[in-house]
Every structure is written in structure tokens, then in C-alpha cells.
């Protein structure tokens, strides 16, 4: 079965072709009849293959040479190992559930078939990203998911904000991708190959030339991993390239769940884990990865505490959780990072889909200040959402607790006490804003449009099923895969794919640390409950009392404004200058000047072109007669 790995991305691709050709004219409201089975078959094959990988088989399959140019050779090939398997299962399983959910959520949208084309195309690209056996094919998937992200953020393209958000996502990702590409160039010039197996074999056998100080006193492998990490910053929305993700919430909610929470944004974490043999040779990069991760985790969590758009809160929560994954990877606990990636895919997809069900019930309302009291009319949504929020907050024994605690534990035992403290503070805020989000949405009185209140309806079956399955997953996945901590199933499974974790530098009692993070989460939940359930007028008083801090958070630290003033607008002014000052006057001027010169030089000769056909015919005839006369008589 494992040699049929190409079937996994092939099914969604077939879905793209069928829906792309016949979706608009023929399938229309039945587009899901193609797209959902495509995702389902993909998951089924992935599951069968995963069983073989669990039994110990791996595969490095070369299908055919893709690019051959002298020494530069890149195949289309798949690498099926534990790491790829975890990613493949996460992507296909969550993807399938969100496809099913979309049947209900997107029902009646004029772009229904187009939506499923993009979703299937995304599944295909994401699977190519995680299954590729070389960096260039991974980059193909990397760009493919970026394209789908752009298309789906701007899915409602009549809305200016949506297309703007799509453009922003695309442009910010270009910055990161430029770094990624430079990293690939450097990797190729250093190792002469882009295939994982060969690169890692070389790194393991001959680390000396890689780790010796090279450019600027920094080793080549550090440069490579740094450049690759710039790509990960863009794709996985880390400081300072995170700005596109909150705006990406303009897309339909299933898209936010699939692309901007569960799968695509975790591609950077996957890439770092996949390149762990390289990263482990570059301690400075690892320090940077861990620091950026911890800072992002806290930074985004603070913003999430005051936002009032339900999707924006979850988006900042996603950025924060991605920060934890990078913190895990950065301190060498790659397996814990990937574990958090998998559990996060469950509970964050659940939160987004729950938010989608709320928005669906309220006819597009996303403002938390106009919600409240939805627990009674939307029972199923409320309880599944509560499970997701608790899992995200790190409540024992839900999924998020196991993975987040492992990351914090690894940060502590490797001696990164500062980063651990940042992560712990982030964990407190996470618990706080998740409680706030749940209370504002589902508890208290209904503050929205009374007209909506009368016909509130819970999620239809196609939307309820994914909620239930994901809620179940959020409960069991963590303990099932993560117990006992550090040595759980997921660790044993992933060990062959990843570089070994560094030796613990400090000593710490796992129980004590776990108790501490549980206590912190409990404090966050307590604070949230008090402020948003008991003393509901206190938050406003606090906001008024600490107005400057509140406004700073409300405006998201003015990062967008700073980027606009310091980067985007100077660049645009430079472009405008180059356009008017250089392109129009110098380049166009030169071209026009040449034309004018020719015109001046030819004013007499051009009289020959009379424009009268008769003159032309006559000259052709005269020429023919002369030529014939020469041939006949001239010899």
C-alpha cells in the first residue's frame, strides 16, 4: 500500500480537475459530491499507509525526474516517514471534516463550486508540501498553499477588505519566501543536492565544513537555517511577519479553520522539524527560533485579550500557539512541537468551526459585543466550543494541556528560564482570553439584534458532525498520544524522523512544572470567569483606568501602522519616483527618442510609400520584368 502514496495527493487533484471543468456549468450545488469524496478517499489511503508506517515501514519513492539541468537534479518523489505520516493524517483528517462542514456553511453561496476547487487544490498542495522528499518539491507545495490561501482569503472578491487582505497575505509571504528561496540556493551550493536523505546524510557524515565559521564569522548551516526560518516566519505568522494572519480572517470561516489554523500556518513548524538535522547543527538559529516563538506566544496573547471580533481573537490565539510550537522546536524538542501542532489542529479547527456556526446562526455577525447568551439556543455549538476553548487553555486532561506542558517543560529543562517564563505568562493569558471569548459569546444576556434572536438555529447536521468529531479529538488525542509526558506514543513514533533532543541542562520535577502551568491556567480561567461572568462591568472600568495600555492592545501595538509608515509607504514613494522619474523620462524617453530620430532621418525616403496599391503593383511588375529580362537576355 505504501508505494501508492501518490494517491493521497492525487485524489484532491482529480477533484480540482473535475470541479474546475464541470463545477460552474454542470455540478454547481452538487460540487461537494466530488470534493468531499476526494478528501475522504485521500484520508482513507493515508490511514492505510499510516498503519504500515506504524508497523515500521518507511519509503523514499522517486517517481520521475522533475528538473534535470547538469548537476542540478530534482525528482518528483515522496518521503513517507513518521513525521510525514503525522502531518499527512492531520491534514487529511481535519481537511475531510472541514470539507464536510463546508457543505452546510457555504450552502447557497454563488461561488460554491469555486470554493471546493480551491479547497481541493489546497489539500493537494499541502500534501505535496508534507510528503515531498526534497526541498524544491516542498517549496512547490509551500507556494501552492500560499496561492490557495490568497485565493480563499479573497474568496468574496466583491468585498474590498477581502481582496486587500488577500494581497496583504500574498505580499507578506513573499518577504518570507524570498528568504526561503535564498536558503535553498545556499543549501544547494553547499550540499549540491536538495533531497532530504542526501542533505541529512551529508550533514551527519561531514558536519565540519558546514559548521565551520564562514561568511561573517557565522557558519554556513546557520545561514541556511536562518534563511529557511525567515520563510517559516512568513508562512507560520511569527514576529515580525505575522501581520497578514489577523486580516486573513476575511475569508470564509472553514478556510480560517483549515488553512489559517490547522494546516497551512503550521507548515513552518513542519519545515523546521523536517530540517531538524540541520537546525541541530546551528545553535544560534535554534536560540533565535525559540526566542521568536516565545515572544510571539506572549505578544499575540496580549492582543487576543482585548479584540472584539470573534475570529480575530482566535486568529491571534493561533499566532500565539504557533509561537509555542516554535518555542518547542527552538529548544530542541521537535517532537513536542509537532505534537502541539497536531493537538492544536484539532482544538483550533474546532474553535473556528464553532465560531463559524455562531456567525452562521447570527447571519454574519462577528462582533463579540453583539453576542452573548447563545448557550441555550446553540447547545451543541456551545459545549463543543467550550471543549475547544478548554483544550486551548491547557485544562487537564484535554489535548492542549499535554502538548503545551511538554514544550514549557522542555524550555525549562534546557535552561531557557526566561523563555519559559514568557511561555508561562502566555499560558495565563491564553486561559484568560479563551474564558473571555467563551463567556462573551455564550453566557450572559443576548446583546445583538433582537430580530436575530427569535430564529437562532443550531448547526445543521453537516456542520454538527465535524464539531462533534473534533471535540472528541480535542479530548482524547492529547492523553492518548502524549502520556506519559516526554515518552508518549507520539515521541516514540516520531523519534526516527527527528534530530535527538539535547541533553537536559537543568533538573526539574515534571510534576511540579505541570502543576505550575495548571495553576496558571486555572488562574487565567478564574480571572476570566470573574471579569466576564460575575463582575461584568469591571472590564470596562479597567479599560478606562488603563486607557493607554488598552488602546495600545486594541490597535494591536500599531504594528500595521508602523509597517505602513516606515516600509510600505516609503517603498511606494520610491516606486512612484522610479515610475515617473526614471521609467517615463529615461526609459520611455530613450525609446521615443530613437523613434523620433528615425522619423527625422527618413522624411524624404518615406515618400516612396505612397499607400496607393497600384503603384506597388506596378513596381513589382517592373521589377519582375527587369529580373526576367536579365535572366533571359543578360547571359
Amino acid at each position: 500500500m505504501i508505494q501508492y502514496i501518490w494517491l493521497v495527493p492525487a485524489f484532491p487533484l482529480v477533484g480540482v480537475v473535475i470541479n474546475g471543468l464541470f463545477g460552474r456549468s454542470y455540478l454547481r450545488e452538487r460540487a461537494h459530491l466530488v470534493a468531499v469524496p476526494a478528501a475522504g478517499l485521500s484520508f482513507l489511503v493515508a490511514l492505510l499507509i499510516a498503519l504500515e508506517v506504524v508497523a515500521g515501514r518507511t519509503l523514499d519513492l522517486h517517481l520521475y525526474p522533475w528538473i534535470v539541468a547538469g548537476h542540478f537534479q530534482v525528482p518528483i518523489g515522496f518521503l513517507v516517514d513518521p513525521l510525514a505520516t503525522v502531518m499527512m493524517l492531520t491534514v487529511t483528517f481535519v481537511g475531510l471534516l472541514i470539507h464536510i462542514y463546508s457543505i452546510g456553511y457555504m450552502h447557497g453561496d454563488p461561488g460554491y463550486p469555486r470554493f471546493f476547487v480551491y479547497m481541493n487544490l489546497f489539500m493537494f498542495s499541502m500534501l505535496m508540501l508534507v510528503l515531498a522528499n526534497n526541498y524544491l518539491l516542498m517549496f512547490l507545495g509551500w507556494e501552492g498553499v500560499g496561492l490557495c490561501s490568497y485565493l480563499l482569503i479573497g474568496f468574496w472578491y466583491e468585498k474590498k477588505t477581502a481582496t486587500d487582505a488577500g494581497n496583504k497575505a500574498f505580499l507578506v509571504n513573499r518577504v518570507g519566501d524570498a528568504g526561503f528561496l535564498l536558503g535553498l540556493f545556499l543549501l544547494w551550493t553547499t550540499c549540491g543536492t536538495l533531497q532530504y536523505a542526501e542533505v541529512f546524510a551529508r550533514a551527519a557524515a561531514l558536519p565540519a565544513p558546514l559548521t565551520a565559521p564562514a561568511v561573517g564569522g557565522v557558519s554556513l548551516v546557520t545561514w541556511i537555517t536562518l534563511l529557511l526560518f525567515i520563510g517559516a516566519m512568513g508562512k507560520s505568522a511569527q514576529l515580525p511577519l505575522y501581520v497578514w494572519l489577523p486580516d486573513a480572517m476575511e475569508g470564509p470561516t472553514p478556510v480560517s479553520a483549515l488553512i489559517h489554523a490547522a494546516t497551512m500556518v503550521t507548515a513552518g513548524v513542519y519545515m523546521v522539524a523536517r530540517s531538524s538535522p540541520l537546525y541541530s547543527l546551528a545553535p544560534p538559529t535554534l536560540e533565535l527560533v525559540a526566542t521568536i516563538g516565545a515572544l510571539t506566544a506572549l505578544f499575540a496573547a496580549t492582543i487576543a485579550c482585548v479584540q472584539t471580533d470573534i475570529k480575530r481573537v482566535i486568529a491571534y490565539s493561533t499566532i500565539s500557539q504557533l509561537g509555542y510550537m516554535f518555542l518547542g522546536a527552538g529548544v530542541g524538542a521537535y517532537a513536542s512541537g509537532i505534537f502541539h501542532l497536531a493537538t492544536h489542529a484539532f482544538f483550533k479547527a474546532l474553535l473556528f468551526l464553532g465560531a463559524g456556526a455562531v456567525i452562521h446562526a447570527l447571519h454574519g455577525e462577528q462582533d463579540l459585543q453583539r453576542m452573548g447568551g447563545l448557550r441555550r439556543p446553540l447547545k451543541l455549538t456551545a459545549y463543543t466550543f467550550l471543549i475547544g476553548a478548554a483544550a486551548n487553555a491547557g485544562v487537564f486532561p484535554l489535548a492542549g494541556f499535554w502538548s503545551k506542558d511538554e514544550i514549557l517543560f522542555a524550555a525549562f529543562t534546557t535552561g531557557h528560564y526566561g523563555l519559559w517564563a514568557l511561555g508561562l505568562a502566555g499560558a495565563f493569558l491564553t486561559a484568560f482570553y479563551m474564558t473571555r471569548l467563551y463567556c462573551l459569546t455564550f453566557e450572559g444576556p443576548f446583546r445583538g439584534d433582537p430580530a436575530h434572536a427569535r430564529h437562532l438555529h443550531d448547526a445543521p447536521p453537516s456542520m454538527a458532525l465535524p464539531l462533534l468529531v473534533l471535540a472528541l479529538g480535542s479530548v482524547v488525542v492529547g492523553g492518548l498520544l502524549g502520556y506519559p509526558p516526554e515518552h508518549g506514543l507520539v515521541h516514540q513514533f516520531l523519534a526516527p524522523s527527528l534530530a535527538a533532543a539535547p541533553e537536559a541542562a537543568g533538573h526539574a520535577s515534571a510534576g511540579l512544572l505541570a502543576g505550575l502551568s495548571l495553576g496558571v491556567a486555572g488562574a487565567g480561567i478564574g480571572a476570566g470567569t470573574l471579569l466576564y461572568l460575575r463582575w461584568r462591568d469591571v472590564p470596562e472600568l479597567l479599560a478606562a483606568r488603563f486607557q493607554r495600555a488598552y488602546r495600545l492592545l486594541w490597535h494591536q501595538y500599531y504594528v500595521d501602522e508602523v509597517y505602513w509608515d516606515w516600509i510600505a509607504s516609503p517603498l511606494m514613494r520610491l516606486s512612484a519616483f522610479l515610475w515617473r522619474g526614471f521609467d517615463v523620462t529615461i526609459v520611455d524617453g530613450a525609446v521615443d527618442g530613437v523613434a523620433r530620430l528615425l522619423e527625422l532621418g527618413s522624411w524624404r525616403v518615406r515618400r516612396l510609400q505612397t499607400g496607393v496599391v497600384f503603384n506597388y503593383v506596378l513596381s513589382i511588375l517592373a521589377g519582375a520584368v527587369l529580373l526576367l529580362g536579365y535572366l533571359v537576355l543578360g547571359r
Partner: protein
Amino acid sequence: MVPLWAYLFLSAFLFAVGVVGVATRRNALVIFMSIELMLNAVNLSFVAFARFLHSLDGQVFVFFVMTVAAAEVAVGLAIIIAIFRNAETVNVDEVHLLKG
């Protein structure tokens, strides 16, 4: 048997008619037909020579000329239609964008 000169005479006559047509008429379609006439006048002399010299070369050439002529008709008619759509005329005197 019809002598060779008779064929060549007819061929030369047809060719001359074509030349005069191209030179004097103003309608692009008529000019086009005159060109076809010239091509077929040449074809006639080719087959005549092929017949009298007992060689198939001339006939082969005729096939080539016919093929090229067919292709030329397709392209030429398309151009004439495009000109008519733009200029509302097929009178070649009125189409003189390239006049210097």
C-alpha cells in the same frame, strides 16, 4: 493532340489577365481572385510541361502550389474580413495606414 504552345499561350493569357486585374481593380476581393488566376495560370503551364516531358515533377509542384494557395486563401480572407470590420470597406485605396 493539342500542341504545347497552345497550353503555354492560354497560360500566358490567363497570367496577363491576372496581372491586369491586380493592377487595375480596387476591390480587395477581386484582386485576390486575380492572384488566384495567376497562380492557376502557372499551374497550367506546369502540368502541360509535365505531360510533354513525361516527368511527374511538374504535377508534384502543382500540388504544392494548390496547398499553399489554399492556405493563403484562408489567411487572406481572414485579413480581408478583419479589414472590413475595422474600416467598413474592402477598397484598397481607402486602406492606407502605411502611407508615408
